[in-house]
C-alpha cells in the first residue's frame, strides 16, 4: 500500500473544527464535531450515509452556517470571514458541480475568469488543466456528453483552477465503476503531491486507506473514532485473508495448523461459509500463512484478501452496526433535495 503523503512532525493545521453543530429540526446532522487536518495531508472522514459528512463539507465551504461551534480553514473563520475563506478553498462534491450545458473548456475558462485571471491566463489554465486531466479531446463537447468519470475529472480540474490551499472532496468516487474510481484516485494523489491539503469524505475504507493518512470516523453527526490510518487499521484488523480449501472437511485442520504458528492476531481466525478467514496485519503474515498452508500440502481452491467494509469498521470501533439512518433521520442527499 503506497501512502502519498508524509506528516510533518510539527505540521500546522489547515483545518480546525471544534464543537461544530448543525441541526435540521430534530435531525442532528452535526452534533459537536471536532477535527484537525494538518497542512499538506489528507484527512479521510469516514461514515455511512447520513452520518453528517456532506453537512460538514457544506459548513466548511460556507454553503451553510453552523448552529454552534467554530471552524477555521486556512486561518479564516467560516462564519466571520467567508469571503476570504472562499479564496483558499476548492470543492468537488458527489454531485458534479460544473455546468452540464457548457463544454468542458468553457466551464474551466468561466471559473478562471470568476477567479480574476486575465483572459489569456484563463485560456491557458483551461488548456493546461484539460491536458493534465486527459480531457483535451473532449474540450469542446458539452459536459452532458461526458461519462461519469470524465465529469468527475472535470470537476476536480475546476476545483484546481484557483490553486486552492484546501480542497474538499465529498465522496469523490461514489457511483463510479472501479476503473474510473482508480483514475480519480490517481488524480487526487497527484494533487496531494503538489502540496494541497485535502479533506475527503467517503463511505469506503479502501478509499480512505488509498488516499488518507489520518481518519476521522463519524456517525450520526458525532466523531466515533479518529487517528492515523495505520492505528485504526490495527484496531479494525487490517485486511482479511479468505481461503477456501478444495475439501471443506480440511477447514478445522487448516485452522489448527495456523494457530500453531503463533502469528500476531491469528487467533482471530474464523470459519464460516466454507471458508477460513484470517486477519492479516502485515504483508509478511500473508506470505507466512500461504507458505505454511502450501508446505503442509493443503489443496486450496480459492484465495483472496479483502479490506474491512464500513460495517466491519464500525463493528470493531463502536461495537454496533453502522446506523444507516435506521431512526428515520434523513440522509444528506435527502436534506439537499428538500432544501433545493
Amino acid at each position, binding site marked *: 500500500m503506497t501512502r502519498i503523503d508524509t506528516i510533518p512532525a510539527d505540521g500546522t493545521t489547515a483545518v480546525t473544527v471544534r464543537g461544530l453543530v448543525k441541526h435540521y429540526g430534530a435531525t442532528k446532522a452535526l452534533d459537536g464535531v471536532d477535527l484537525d487536518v494538518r497542512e499538506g495531508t489528507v484527512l479521510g472522514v469516514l461514515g455511512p450515509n447520513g452520518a453528517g459528512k456532506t453537512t460538514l463539507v457544506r459548513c466548511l465551504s460556507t454553503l451553510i452556517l453552523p448552529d454552534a461551534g467554530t471552524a477555521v480553514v486556512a486561518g479564516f473563520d467560516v462564519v466571520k470571514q467567508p469571503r476570504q475563506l472562499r479564496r483558499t478553498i476548492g470543492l468537488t462534491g458527489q454531485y458534479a*458541480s460544473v455546468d*452540464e*450545458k457548457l463544454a468542458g473548456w468553457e466551464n474551466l475558462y468561466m471559473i478562471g*475568469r*470568476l477567479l*480574476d485571471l486575465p483572459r489569456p491566463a484563463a485560456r491557458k489554465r483551461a488548456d493546461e488543466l484539460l491536458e493534465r486531466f486527459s480531457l483535451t479531446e473532449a474540450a469542446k463537447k458539452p459536459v452532458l456528453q461526458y461519462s461519469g468519470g470524465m465529469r468527475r475529472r472535470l470537476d476536480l480540474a*475546476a476545483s484546481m483552477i484557483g490553486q486552492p490551499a484546501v480542497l474538499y472532496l465529498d465522496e469523490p468516487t461514489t457511483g463510479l465503476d472501479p476503473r474510473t474510481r482508480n483514475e480519480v484516485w490517481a488524480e487526487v494523489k497527484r494533487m496531494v503531491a503538489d502540496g494541497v491539503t485535502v479533506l475527503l469524505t467517503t463511505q469506503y475504507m479502501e478509499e480512505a486507506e488509498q488516499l488518507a493518512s489520518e481518519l476521522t470516523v463519524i456517525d450520526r453527526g458525532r466523531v466515533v473514532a479518529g487517528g492515523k490510518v495505520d492505528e485504526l487499521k490495527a484496531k479494525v484488523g487490517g485486511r482479511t485473508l479468505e481461503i477456501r480449501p478444495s475439501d471443506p472437511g480440511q477447514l478445522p485442520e487448516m485452522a489448527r495448523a495456523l494457530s500453531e504458528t503463533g502469528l500476531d492476531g491469528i487467533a482471530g481466525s474464523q470459519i464460516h461459509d466454507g471458508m477460513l478467514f484470517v486477519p492479516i496485519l502485515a504483508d509478511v503474515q500473508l506470505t507466512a500463512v500461504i507458505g505454511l498452508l502450501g508446505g503442509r500440502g493443503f489443496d486450496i481452491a480459492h484465495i483472496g484478501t479483502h479490506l474491512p467494509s464500513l460495517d466491519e469498521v464500525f463493528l470493531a470501533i463502536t461495537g454496533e452496526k453502522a446506523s444507516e439512518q435506521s431512526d428515520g433521520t434523513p440522509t444528506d442527499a435527502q436534506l439537499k433535495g428538500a432544501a433545493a
Partner: protein
Amino acid sequence: MSTATTTKVTEPAPPTRTERTVRPVTDEGRIGLRANLRHIGALARRNALQIKQDPESMFDVLLMPIVFTLLFVFVFGGAVAGKGNQSEYVSYLVPGLMAMMGLNVSMAVGSGINEDFQKGVMDRFRTMPIARSSVLIAKIVVEVGRMMVAFAILLIVGFILGMSVETSPLQVLGAIGLSLLFGASLMWIFILIGLTVKTAQAVQGVGFLVLMPLQFGSSIFTPPSTMPSWLQNFTDYNPLSNLADAARALFIGGPVAHDLWMTLAWSAVITVVTAPIAVAKFRKKT
C-alpha cells in the same frame, strides 16, 4: 542579474506553497466594482452559451410575439376597432404587448434560477470569491437580451400588419427602454419566487395565477373605458396599464408624463424592495 531572478531568489522555500497564493488574502475580501463587472460578464457568457447549446430555449421569445400579435389582431381586432380596422388596433396593441412580453420573459427567469439550483454548479458559484448577487444579475442581463429579441420581432410583425408610428425614433427607443426596464424589475420578483418554491413547474403555476388577471385587467388589449367601474379602478392602478399607456403614447403620441413617471416609480419600487430580499434569500439558501 535581472530583476526576475532576484524575485525568485527571495521567494520563501517551498515553491508549491508560494505558487498557490495567487491572490494574496490581505484585505477584507471585498469584491471591487470592476471585479464584480468581470464576474457578471463571465456568468452572462455562461448563460448565453447555454442558449447556444440549447437553441430551443429561444422558441418562446421567437414565437410568442408572432403568435400573440396575430391572435389578438385577427381575433379581437375587429371587435375592438370595428371590422376592417385591424391596422388601427395593431397600432394600439403592439406598444402595449411589449409589457406582456416583458412579463412572460421575466417569468422564465424564475424557473431558470430554480432549475439552476437543482444543479451542483450553483454550489460551486457560492463557494467562490464572487459577489453572490453577480449570479442573479448575469441572469438578468442575458434575459434582458432575450427580451430585446422578443421586442424586435414584435415590432417587425407589427409593422408588417400596418402599425403606424407617429413620433420620433428617439421616443420609440424610449418606449422600448422603458419596457425593458420594467421587465428587468419584474425579474427580481420572479427570481424571488424561483428561490422560494420547490420546483420550476411551481414557478410557472404561481406565475400564471398572478399574470393572467394582471395582463387582462390592464389597458394592454382594450381601452378600459368599456369595463365596469370597479375593474377600471383596478386597471388604473395596474402598473402594466401605466407601461402600456406610456409606450403607446411614445409610439403614437398623446400625454405621456403621468404614465412614464408611474412606470419608472413602479420599476424603482419593485427593484428596491425585491432585489435585496432575493439576494439575501439566494445567499442563505442551503
